[in-house]
């Protein structure tokens, strides 16, 4: 079936909302898109334009509906095929904003096989592609971590923070040194992302670093860095390391003595009581 005919199943806004949508027609169109394979998917992607550069409500809706509907049990074959065909279109010469939309759909359905197609955008600052790529890879899961490791040393500016945070999301213990270096960075948010990554990995060996660094911070940095210390204590406790957790609570009790930090003392007291 002609691709433009398939897309007619998806509504154009009537007034301001999509209230005339027809469930059966849209679902049939999704089946036709899946059956149409690579050619149909590319033809639909070709109809997606940069925001403000034309009318593309139907192709965007169709691609999203298909990305969603290939999910769930019993759809592995369709999911694999659709994701592969959609990821292939990232290699084409397209506006960056369109590639951003494609990556966001891949976040819903793609598997590790599509990571190679998404990863080159981790260091692309335009149109927030680095952010979309990182989020898609994080959604796919830990098998994508090598792409973050590879991209981080080259990263600058906003992508650097996003990639570092991605390593933390994926709890990458091989990036411990990167996190430790980050805690000494001149930018507060990089320092905090480093502390957060170490907190999520939760090793006894990083207790001193988190305590020392959190004591050096002030204002917002101190609030968040102290929070990561307390979360580290809980993570260590969950791992069975009472010693590390106890060290954190005792340190907080000793050092957070300002009047506006009494809630931290209470938190440390509760932690110590739990460890008994």
């Amino acid at each position, binding site marked *: 079936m002609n691709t433009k005919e398939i897309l007619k199943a*998806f509504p154009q*806004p009537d007034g*301001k*909302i*999509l*209230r005339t*949508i*027809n*469930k059966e027609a*849209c*679902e049939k169109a*999704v089946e036709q898109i899946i059956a149409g394979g690579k050619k149909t998917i590319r033809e639909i992607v070709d109809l997606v334009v940069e*925001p*403000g550069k034309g*009318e593309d*409500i139907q192709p*965007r*809706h169709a*691609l*999203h509906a298909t990305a*969603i*509907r290939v*999910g*769930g*049990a019993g759809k592995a074959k369709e999911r694999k095929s659709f994701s592969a065909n959609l990821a292939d279109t990232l290699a084409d010469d397209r506006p960056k904003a369109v590639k951003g939309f494609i990556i*966001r759909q891949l*976040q*819903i*359905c793609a598997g590790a096989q599509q990571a190679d197609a998404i990863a080159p955008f981790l260091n692309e600052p335009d149109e*927030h592609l680095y*952010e*979309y790529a*990182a*989020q898609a890879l994080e*959604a796919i899961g830990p098998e994508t971590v090598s792409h973050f490791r590879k991209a981080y040393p080259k990263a600058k500016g906003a992508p650097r923070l*996003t990639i570092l*945070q991605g390593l933390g*999301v994926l709890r990458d213990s091989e990036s411990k040194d990167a996190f430790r270096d980050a805690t000494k960075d001149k930018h507060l*948010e990089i320092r*905090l992302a480093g502390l957060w990554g170490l907190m999520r990995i939760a090793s006894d060996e990083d207790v001193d670093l988190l305590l020392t660094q959190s004591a050096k911070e002030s*204002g*917002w940095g101190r*609030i*968040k860095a*102290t*929070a990561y210390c*307390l979360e580290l204590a*809980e993570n260590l406790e969950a791992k069975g390391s009472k010693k590390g957790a106890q060290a954190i609570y005792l340190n907080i009790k000793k050092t957070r003595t*300002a*009047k*506006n*930090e*009494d*809630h*931290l003392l*209470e*938190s440390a007291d*509760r932690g*110590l*009581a739990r460890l008994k």
Partner: protein
Amino acid sequence: MKKTPCKNTRRSFLAKSATGATAATILPRHIFGAPHVPPSEKFGTALIGCGGRGPGTYSGLCKGLDVELVGACDVDLNRAQRFSQARSKGKAEVYQDFRKLLERKDLDLVAIATPPHWHASISIASAEAGMDVLCEKPMTRFVAEGRAVVNAFKRYGRVFQIGTFGRFGRSKDRGSVLKHKIMASGLLKDCKVVRMKKGGLKVKQWSGTPGIPPQTVPEQLDWDMYCGPSPWKPYESRRVTGTHRGYWDYEGGGMCDMGQHHFDPEQWTYAKDYTSPVEITPFAPPSHPEVTGMWAWVELKYADGFKFVMESGEWGPSDDRQPVRDVSIDDLSKEDQEKIKATPDPEPLLSFGEAVKQRKQAGGHPEAAHRAACILHLANLAIRLGRKLNYDPDKEVFVNDSEANRFLNPPMSAPWRI
């Protein structure tokens, strides 16, 4: 505008009274044996998100407490300035970034009335900074945020109240108290209760508008800060000021706007504050990637057989698969009826103000608010995904559906994280 620190804050009051705290969820004072004395000190307060719901939420925060507004924060500076002027004759300092506001040492209570994609991050940060919080509904944008809020308020022993109050009335209504006792008792075998919410979820009103071209960001608006933990998108004016409700990035349509009002008291009545549905079945067309849209009905079934059914009444067929049925004392054996009669009534729910003064849990506490928000999120996810979902309410994940699980804890935009 100058900073005007409150000389006698609740914190200094607590510091004087709190010694050697150990267990307890919220704390000091009464648990150490001291008689309950409401603090006479003024509470330093702030509002974060000074638009539409802001002033009302702030009034809720202040109810029954002696307060002084010290800060007003909004990504749109004009709104923060207007609120400061209206409530403090401009004395309260204005902020565009809540992080700077939370650094204040004279701040005790925070009202949060931003769009929902900011609720969890700001609530958590407020608890980390030692504040008690009254937060607009819906509590969160996705499920994992709610668990993070619960954990944070437990960690810091702070008071949290969600900005919906229907459960307070229910908890004083004899019929609702009886239903609560029956459902909480565990004595009801083979629960056949079906509760229907028909209409009132503003499906069309809060459905978004797709395909609007990007616009120039107004000078007074920090657009990147507005997007915050949600994915960055080009600015267009319908994404802010109320119509944000029609976008998946910020809220979740009328379901999330109105649902917590309806299901929070229902959840209390039927004793579901500490669990979530196990099966969610939708009837909805394929959703749009950006904007919320039409749906017909969603059924949410709990492990004990109890069902919530919501029917939009604004699109598609009715759900007439089963009759509505309430719980009754007659559903129990005579012996069990006697047990229910002998069961004491639940503890009265504390208002936010009383909870702050007594350092106890408020009626709309984090776990209850999270579970009520989960009803909306699970229903919306079934609508978006177009398939029946099986949910594990203890692990808070979908069973055998890894693609659906991607929506329970979607990655946030740096530097925001939970």
